[in-house]
């Protein structure tokens, strides 16, 4: 059959940009150093079942938003509480990403521009995009994903002259522990942040079971792409430089110097960061406002968008006060909430939802008239 343009691909593009988002400029799986590709493989293997659970949840809640699905599963008050947790998680993530970008831009290219200006510029764009809704975001990302892939792959291809594969040896000199440390970091940030897309993916398409087609390709593509970028950075910079700089990918791309002309390409990193980060903030804020509306019992979420989006301007300053802070990553409390939100709660939802579904099915089988 002939492939047709299907919105699933737009959704996958959205997932791809969401995961790439702000993550790729940082030294992902820093602890694993030269073994980070192993961390990536481990993290992908560990994350896939969870992503499948997210997809299953999406399918079970077919046609409903995340909060509606919660409502059906748990009833009014518990669902409101959970929605509040997710809303806060999404909002906090949005603030973090904004903080990442403003800090990055200030550290790398615009030292005198106040961060609040960058944050405000983002807030305005995000406000606009979130009000337009998820379809517009998906279309936006399916155009941008081509740009991003094109410029980053070109930059990487040009950087191959600097790559030294010897940098990956010796393998596993320091044992498995750093690899797992790196893998867990990858799971927390950015792989399982995909949990926010539960309930959004199926808004893109009316077909059943298409959540998998949105989540899995988007996730795999993003994960392999991140692995490629991080590994290339290690192979270019060497393990030590990768570990000691804040933005190793930026530094790696800056190495490129072809004929004195194709040089100073590090700007493509900034471009990708700005685009991916924008998409991620928008998705976060969309999820935050939808869930907050449910938690507070409002039928429509749109009027919550403006205050929530504007609140990321101070929020970003609060959550990412300095480059060091955002680079050191999640504090212990944050790690706890992350595990709850990304793993524990989705598993509970899944279990409950499956039990309910099988009961419904049994009832249907027992009483052919149906409920």
């Amino acid at each position: 059959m002939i492939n047709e343009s299907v919105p699933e691909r737009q959704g996958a593009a959205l997932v791809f940009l969401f995961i790439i988002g702000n993550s790729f400029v940082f030294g992902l799986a820093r602890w694993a150093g030269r073994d980070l590709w192993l961390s990536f493989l481990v993290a992908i293997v560990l994350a896939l079942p969870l992503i499948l659970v997210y997809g299953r949840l999406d399918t079970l809640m077919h046609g409903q938003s995340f909060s509606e699905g919660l409502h059906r599963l748990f009833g009014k008050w518990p669902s409101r509480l959970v929605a509040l947790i997710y809303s806060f998680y999404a909002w906090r993530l949005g603030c973090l990403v904004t903080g990442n970008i403003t800090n990055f831009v200030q550290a790398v290219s615009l030292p005198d521009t106040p961060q609040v200006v960058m944050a405000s510029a983002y807030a305005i764009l995000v406000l606009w995009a979130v009000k337009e809704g998820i379809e517009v975001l998906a279309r936006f990302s399916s155009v941008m994903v081509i740009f991003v892939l094109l410029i980053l792959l070109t930059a990487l291809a040009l950087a191959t002259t600097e790559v030294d594969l010897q940098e990956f040896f010796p393998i596993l000199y320091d044992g498995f522990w750093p690899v797992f440390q790196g893998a867990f970091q990858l799971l927390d940030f950015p792989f399982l942040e995909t949990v926010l897309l539960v309930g959004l993916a199926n808004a893109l398409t009316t077909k059943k079971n298409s959540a998998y087609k949105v989540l899995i390709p988007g996730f795999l593509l993003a994960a392999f792409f991140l692995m490629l970028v991080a590994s290339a950075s290690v192979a270019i910079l060497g393990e030590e430089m990768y570990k000691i700089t804040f933005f190793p990918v930026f530094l790696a791309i800056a190495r490129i110097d072809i004929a004195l002309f194709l040089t100073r390409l590090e700007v493509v990193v900034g471009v990708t960061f700005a685009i991916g980060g924008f998409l991620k903030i928008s998705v976060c804020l969309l999820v935050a406002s939808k869930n907050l509306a449910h938690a507070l019992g409002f039928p429509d979420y749109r009027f919550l968008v403006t205050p929530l989006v504007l609140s990321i301007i101070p929020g970003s300053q609060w959550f990412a006060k300095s480059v060091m802070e955002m680079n050191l990553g999640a504090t212990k409390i944050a790690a706890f909430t992350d595990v709850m939100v990304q793993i524990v709660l989705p598993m509970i939802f899944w279990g409950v939802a499956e039990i309910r579904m099988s009961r419904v099915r049994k009832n249907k089988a027992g009483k052919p008239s149906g409920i």
Partner: protein
Amino acid sequence: MKKGLARIFLLCTMTIVTTGCWDYTEIELRDLVMGAGVDAEDPKVIVITEMAKSIGVGQEAEFEPVVLTTDARSLTSGAHNLANPAGMEIFWAHAQVFLVSEEVARSSILQVLEPIVRARDLRSTMYLLVTKDCTVEEVFKSKPPLVDGVSRHLASVIRLSDVTTDFIPQQVWRFIGDLSSPGISGTLPGVELVHEGGALLPVVRGAAVFKLDRLIGWLSKEETQILALLKGESEGGFFVMDTEVKGNTFPITYEFRGSQFQTKPSVDGENLRMKVSLSLQLGVAGVKGADVDFSDLAVVNDIEGQVSRSFTRRIRDFLGLIQEDYNSDIVGFGQLLWRQEPAIWRKVESDWDAVFRDLPVDVDVDCRISFTGFHAQPIKVRN
């Protein structure tokens, strides 16, 4: 009505937030630093920069290098102090070379590297050089013959590394990588001032040998050639060797046309050995005053043997120098061991210096002459 209000609000935010171009600076108001360096003057450092000053207008604009000097307690503060005499915002990102005086390098090169890596606008792709027998200031004040400005001159010399092995170029980030990786020490190319036709010219040659972050000695041009071969960075260059052909000795000029190089650690009981095998492809670039017939395979084989023996000897001498005299693993035997035999490295890691000093190295050079120019036979001069 509501929408209108929101728009007005947005407009106001935009105007308030964006009425300012914080990082807007005209390019002609920035002082473009082409190269910089540090001299020592205990307890202060002297920061020297070479900047581009434009003369002429419009299409006839040209550039003239201007050297500014200041002393300060640290490199960073010195760099900032320069803005005052320069009278413009100093713009570092275009600096291509960074010179360190031998004195500074001997005390610790980290004091220079650290601010460079930390600074936002100093690029770690700058080439690092160490001045030999002269100060950085003297180098910057010399007059290169063809190119305006010492920095540009040095940068273009460094780009010659494809065709010469007099030095091994080193960028800041790579040098830091060498310093912080296990089992390898760093080297930096040296700059000397040479009298040439009444003028002082900066020449890049040789290498400064580091142990940890301190300079401990120098390699000559010839030794650097061997180092380049052993590090696999030799891509071109020529050398002259007295060669005996049929009882007569001629200086023949050879050209490097390629080299394969392999180092293999081997363990024999408790004894660790290194085996260095090098295969060279050479071309004959010139024969001085002789009739050497390169179509005679016996002659060629003989020459190849001589070159191989000569290189074996030179490599042994070189290894002796770095193992015993400097005791600095600039070839990276330790790194190789770490990468290929991590189990052994784990045992010797703690006292690698001692192990390296006594490390037995087998050298095996195989040399092939693959190209003799366009002449198979020498030009015959007859009556």
